[in-house]
C-alpha cells in the first residue's frame, strides 16, 4: 500500500477481535479507532477492519484491528483472518455467562488457526451494565491466569479501559517483537533501516517471513 508521509510508523501490528456475537467487538473497535460508540450498531457481516496509529513504548505503531461476525460461518470465508495476526482480543460479555463459557472454544479456534505465539488478551466487556453482571471478575481473572492470558474488563460504552486494553496488548506484542529482533541471528531486515517499517501479515504472497512468526 502506498504510504503517505503522515502515515509513517515504525511497526504495523495486526490484532484480531474474536468472541461470541453481540459481546461488543465492533464497538470496542470503533471506540479505540474513532472514539465512537453506537448503541444501534448492526451485526458485522464478513470482515471489517480499522487502524489507528499510536505511540507504544516510544515507537509509532500502526494498529490494524480486524473485526468479524461472531458466527463461525464468516471466518471460514476469510481464511486470511488470522493470517499474520500478532494479537487477539478475546471478548466476552460480563452479563452473559454463555459468552464466557465459550471462551475455551475461541481459544481452541486460535490454537487451530492462528500463529502459536499470538498474544491473547481476555476482555470482559459491558462493565457499565453493573446490575446485570453475571460473570465475576475473579472467575475470569483466575481463568486467564490458568490459560496464560492477560485480562482486563472494559466498557466500550463508557470508554473504560478500552485504551488501556489496546495499549497493553500492543506493548506486549512490541516487547516480543523487539526481543526477537535482538536475539535474531539474522541481520536486521533492510526495510527497518530505510522506512523503519515492518509490515507483518496482511498481504498474501509476501515472500518475507514476518519477524515474529514462530521459529
Amino acid at each position, binding site marked *: 500500500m502506498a504510504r503517505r508521509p503522515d502515515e509513517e510508523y515504525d511497526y504495523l501490528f495486526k490484532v484480531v477481535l474474536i468472541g461470541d*456475537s453481540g459481546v461488543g467487538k465492533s464497538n470496542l473497535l470503533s471506540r479505540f479507532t474513532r472514539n465512537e460508540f453506537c448503541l*444501534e*450498531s*448492526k*451485526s458485522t457481516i464478513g470482515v471489517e477492519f480499522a487502524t489507528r496509529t499510536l505511540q507504544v513504548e516510544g515507537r509509532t505503531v500502526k494498529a490494524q484491528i480486524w473485526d468479524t461476525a461472531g*458466527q463461525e460461518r464468516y471466518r*471460514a470465508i*476469510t481464511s486470511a483472518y488470522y493470517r499474520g495476526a500478532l494479537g487477539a482480543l478475546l471478548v466476552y460479555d460480563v452479563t452473559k455467562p454463555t459468552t464466557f463459557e465459550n471462551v475455551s472454544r475461541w481459544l481452541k479456534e486460535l490454537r487451530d488457526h492462528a500463529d502459536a505465539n499470538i498474544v491473547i488478551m481476555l476482555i470482559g466487556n459491558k462493565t457499565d451494565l453493573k446490575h446485570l453482571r453475571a460473570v465475576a471478575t475473579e472467575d475470569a481473572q483466575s481463568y486467564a491466569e490458568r490459560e496464560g492470558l492477560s485480562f482486563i474488563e472494559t466498557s466500550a460504552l463508557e470508554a473504560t479501559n478500552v485504551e488501556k486494553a489496546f495499549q497493553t496488548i500492543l506493548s506486549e506484542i512490541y516487547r516480543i517483537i523487539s526481543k526477537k529482533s535482538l536475539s535474531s541471528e539474522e541481520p536486521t531486515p533492510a526495510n527497518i533501516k530505510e522506512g523503519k517499517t515492518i509490515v507483518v501479515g496482511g498481504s498474501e504472497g509476501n515472500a518475507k517471513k514476518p519477524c515474529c512468526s514462530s521459529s
Partner: protein
Amino acid sequence: MLKGKLQLPDKARRVFPDRLGSLVAGLVDKEDENGLYDSVFESGEELEFIQPDRAELCKESDYEFQCEYGDDCDLSLNDKMMEKEDAKTRKRSEKDGPGQVSVMEVFAADEKRSDIEHELSQKEINLEKLRRIASTGLPEGGGLRGTTWKLLLGYLPPSRDLWEKELTENRQKYAKLKEELLSSPSELNAVNNDVLNSDELNAEGDGGGPLKRHGVSHEDHPLSVGKSSAWHQYFQHTEIADQIDRDLQRTHPNIKFFSGDSSFSRKNRDAMRNILLLFAKLNPAIRYVQGMNEVLAPIFYVFSADTDQQNAANAEADSFSCFVRLLSDSVDHFCPQLDNSPVGILSTLSRLTDLLKANDEELWRHLEFTTKVKPQFYAFRWITLLLTQEFDLQCILRIWDSLLSNPSGVQVSLSLSHTHTHTHQD
C-alpha cells in the same frame, strides 16, 4: 446442491432459475424460457443500475420514516415521499442529459402509479411489462410494491383468478408448518399425551409404580444428549433462536417498525423470528446465518405495509414463502460446505472480479495488485445481503425493485449493478 433441500415448489425455480453461471458468460447468449431476457436488456431503460451517487441522493432527499409507527399506524401513501420520488426522478433525468428531460418528466410518479395499477388489474398479468415498470422503481404505498414483489418472486401466479386460492393454501401451509416445527417437545407431548403415555406404560411395565412418568420417555427428556432427541434438537434450536433474537435487535435499529420496546415492533420481531427459525429448521445444512435477518427485513416490511388488511395480516406467512424464493437464488452463499464449489460464495466473488476486470481493468488492477484488496473484503456483504446493509431502508426498497425485476434472478442483477457502479466511479 443444497437447493434441492429447500422447501421450494418447482414453480419458484422456473421463475428464478439457477443462473449464477451467466454472471460470467455475459448476457448476450442467455435467454430465459419466455425469451424475455434479450428484449429486457436491449431497451436499456428497464434495468436501472445503481449509480454511485445513489446513496447520496437518498440521503439528500431526507427519506426518513416520519410516520410514528403506533399500533394504528397508517403505512399508506405518504405524499411527501411521492413528491420526493418525483424530484428524484427529475434530478436523475437531468443527469441523463438534456435531451431526455422531457421524456423522463412524463414518467412522473403518478403516471407510474396508474401504469402499475392498470397492470395489476389485468386478468392475466404481463410479467414482462410488470418487470419493465418495476425496474424503474415502484411507487410507495397502496400495497403496489407488495403485490408486485409477490408477482416478481413468483409467489403470486400471473392469473389474478388464482390469487385467492394460492394465497389461502400457502397461508394454511405456513400455519401448519409453524405448528409442527415451532412448538416445544412438551407442547407436542401435550397433544400426543394419551398415545405416548399408554405406549410407554405398556412397553415398560412400570405403570404400577408410585411415581408415574407422564410424558417423559426414557429415551427422550430435557436432559438427554442423543442427537435424535427431540429435546436435544429443541435446545439446539434455542441457541439458533437466541442468535436470531440478537440480530433482530440490531435490524434497522433506527426504524420503529423493527426496533424499540413498543408492542408493535415486538410483534414484528416475533414474526420475523418465526420465519427465520422455521427456515433454519427446514434447512438443517444451512440453518440460520447472520445477515438473513437483513434480507428478510425489506420483504416483511413491505408486506406489512400493504393497505389490504388481509394481506397485511398475513405478512408473516407471505414473507416466509417469498424469503425462501428469494434465497433460492443465493442460498448456496450461506453454506460453508459449498464455499469452494462452483456455486459457493468464493466462485461468485471471483466471477465478480472477472466482470470487473472486463469492464474496468484499471480499477481491477488497482485492487488486485496495488492495494491487494480481495473481493471478500468489499463485495462479500453486498452479495450475501443483497445490499441491505449498505443503504437505508427506503433506498433498499428502491434498489430491490430493480433487483427483483431481473428475470434471471437477483444475483445476476446484483453483479451487473456492481460492475456498472465500478465503471461509473471512474
